[in-house]
């Protein structure tokens, strides 16, 4: 099983991929919402979790989330938002749209690891 991290910042993709590697997961990366949809179309059977930034040029992470949850072949893949959008209304919007978890930037490495495990059903919520 692999994780897909979607963020327009290569620094953040690296941070998330390194955290996933520490937990023993291989990571695919996408730098835009459009690229994320392409990766999902090609590799959906391998992807166990999508870590999704909200604000990106082009298709936003929230749009990706809504597209995934409207697609019968993708809706089973859990999505965790990893974003600077920390307002309660946005958190509620994302959870209502189907995200299983939400982490605001900046975050501590241990919080990222804990939330990844939670999102995969491997840790206590």
């Amino acid at each position, binding site marked *: 099983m692999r994780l897909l991290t979607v963020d327009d910042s290569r620094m*953040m993709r690296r941070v998330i991929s390194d955290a996933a590697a520490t937990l023993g997961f291989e990571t695919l990366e996408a730098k835009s919402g459009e690229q994320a949809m392409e990766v999902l179309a090609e590799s959906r059977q391998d992807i166990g979790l999508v870590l999704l930034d909200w604000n990106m040029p082009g298709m936003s992470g929230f749009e990706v989330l809504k597209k995934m949850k409207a697609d019968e072949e993708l809706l089973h893949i859990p999505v965790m938002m990893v974003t600077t959008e920390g307002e309660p209304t946005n958190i509620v919007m994302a959870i209502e749209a189907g995200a299983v978890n939400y982490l605001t930037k900046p975050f501590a490495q241990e919080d990222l690891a804990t939330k990844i495990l939670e999102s995969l059903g491997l840790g206590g919520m």
Partner: protein
Amino acid sequence: MTDTETYRARIVESLKNTVFEVMGTMALAEVTATDIGESEEFLVSGPAAGLMLLAGERPGMVAVSMSESLVRGVVAGITGAAPESLSRQDLLDGIAEIVNMLCGGMKTKVADAGIQLSPPLAVLGNDCTLAWKTDRPTGVLTFEMSGESFTVHVCAL
């Protein structure tokens, strides 16, 4: 205090606290606020700078500027990479994400202000000064980290 002055004070306080959160939580760096002042002009000197435009009901501009060695150290602290291994692209991406996190945290803390954020703009280059035209005062927050200073400029209309 007028409503505008109160709003500006909230913005400055929110940014200051978010600087501590971003540098402390992500880069594991100790940061001290050394000065909070005001300038008549919005002038930002590099060599590394990240800027974001504030839109919505309360427009404005935020910029963070620091030395190349400091941004290299911050990105290295966040990613765990060796500072000397970081490319120019890594530094541009890093300063862009730093200002993105600063503005995101500020926006969350003043959620009632209805601020919207532009995508970040990153600049890297010696002898570079950026000016944003405004007739309103600019808050200038100076911090010290790893023996170097860096500044955050904010103009909130």
